[in-house]
């Protein structure tokens, strides 16, 4: 990437180790107790037009992934996330029109996965509803041999229920078909939980999300992420922060939207959500709004997800190695 200016808040030595099957795995080395989170922003993302430029989106993704994995090329990181022969699902969050993962971002990930050895027919781009996928700009397709774009509303849910703590639910058949899931949320305020990002996106994996919104979704969000299939198969988070909302979410509210022009990536879903909440808080403060706690949505699920029972990751900023970079 040319002309980039990097602002590295804190670098972590050593390569990240993906924590498939473990409660929470961290990188090796001196800073191993910290969770790495990488944010890349591009101030020129929307040039020349008002929409994100596809090539710059791809460059931003590659930059984020290479930074996270200390990789020398754009494909190498994905080889640490997936293996040839695996079925890989990209779980989008396309509930809000204008607040869905960018088509260019999804296309780039599909391309990188194939370059990493995943067959096109083994890639499933999906979300809860077909209507939302279409509204987000994805053309539905279930043709064999090609990347699939499908919704759980047409594929259905498993008959057998799964449980953890407060959660009893049935998983999407798309999700259970996947060996690996890439979690692709979008940064949004949320009028119940405060901010919705990585962990809350798992509500789109199950058949009964509406039953889990009480008590600010706590402990439901943490418990749901502890369901073994979800905890194990969700390997990596690529969060879209190109457009975000700081109030009125999770629906698209243009009056409360802003262009963060960035991506956030990492393995630690709690750390991702913690940093994401900070970004929303910062924007709210800039706009003169109450904090999320003052508003009555204090993100209690973060502490639950990080507690001794769950250990899904860390919500302690001191234990998060945040690397922020700008492409200019």
């Amino acid at each position, binding site marked *: 990437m040319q002309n980039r200016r990097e602002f590295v808040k804190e670098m972590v030595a050593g390569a990240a180790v993906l924590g498939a099957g473990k409660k929470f795995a961290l990188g090796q080395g001196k800073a191993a107790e910290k969770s790495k989170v990488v944010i890349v922003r591009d101030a020129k993302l929307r040039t020349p037009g*008002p929409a994100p430029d596809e090539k710059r989106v791809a460059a931003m993704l590659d930059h984020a992934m290479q930074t996270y994995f200390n990789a020398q090329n754009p494909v190498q990181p994905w080889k640490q996330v997936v293996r040839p022969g695996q079925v890989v699902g990209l779980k989008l969050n396309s*509930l*809000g*029109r*204008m607040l869905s993962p960018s088509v260019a971002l999804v296309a780039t990930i599909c391309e990188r996965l194939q370059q990493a050895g995943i067959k096109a027919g083994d890639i499933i781009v999906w979300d809860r*509803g077909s209507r939302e996928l279409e509204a987000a700009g994805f053309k539905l397709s279930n043709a064999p041999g090609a990347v699939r774009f499908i919704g759980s509303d047409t594929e259905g849910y498993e008959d057998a229920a799964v449980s953890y703590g407060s959660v009893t639910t049935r998983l999407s058949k798309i999700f259970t078909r996947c060996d690996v899931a890439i979690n692709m949320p979008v940064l949004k305020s*949320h*009028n*119940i*939980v405060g901010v*919705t990002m990585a962990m*809350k996106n798992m*509500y789109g994996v199950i058949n009964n*999300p*509406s039953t889990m*919104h009480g008590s600010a*979704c706590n402990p439901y969000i943490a418990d749901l992420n502890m369901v073994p299939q979800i905890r194990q198969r969700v390997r990596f988070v690529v969060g879209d922060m190109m457009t975000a909302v700081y*109030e*009125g*979410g*999770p*629906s*698209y*509210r*243009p*009056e*409360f939207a802003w262009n963060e022009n960035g991506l956030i990536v990492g393995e630690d879903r709690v750390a991702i959500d913690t940093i994401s909440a900070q970004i929303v808080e910062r924007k709210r403060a800039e*706009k003169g*709004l109450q904090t999320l706690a003052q508003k009555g949505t204090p993100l209690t699920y973060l502490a639950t997800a990080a507690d001794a029972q769950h250990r899904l990751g860390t919500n302690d900023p001191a234990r998060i190695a945040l690397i922020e970079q700008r492409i200019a």
Partner: protein
Amino acid sequence: MLAVVMVGGCKKKIVDPFPASGAVAGWEKSGKTQTFDAANLYEYIDGGAEQYISAGVVGVATSDYKFQGSLEATVDVYTMKTADGAKTIFDADPATSDSKSVQLGDAARLYGQSVVFRKGVYLARITAFDAVPGGSDALLALAHGVEGKL
């Protein structure tokens, strides 16, 4: 097309809130009307549903529109059990530096890319998906068209 919602187990017709194509200058109704009741509202607005349910939502009718063939917008008309419920939702949004109150229904707020108003038990929100010159005037015109049907 009439939007139909369930109230107390009985079907109750509400007025069709959507102006036909051409009824408001420049606006074309570009999508089918969809309705959601309190039980399945989350399918439409996910976690946003709880706020409406708490305020006593009966249902929502929604449709897409296009202005002069390009500017896309969505019109959502929520029917609440009471006018207080509509006021609760309306008042929940903080004012922003670019919002202004406008004369429409019982109360209305106009933003650069959206307009929200309440009228009796109805809470209407019109959201555009682009910012274009004259867009807010066009949205306000459509809002008047919707308000006239409530």
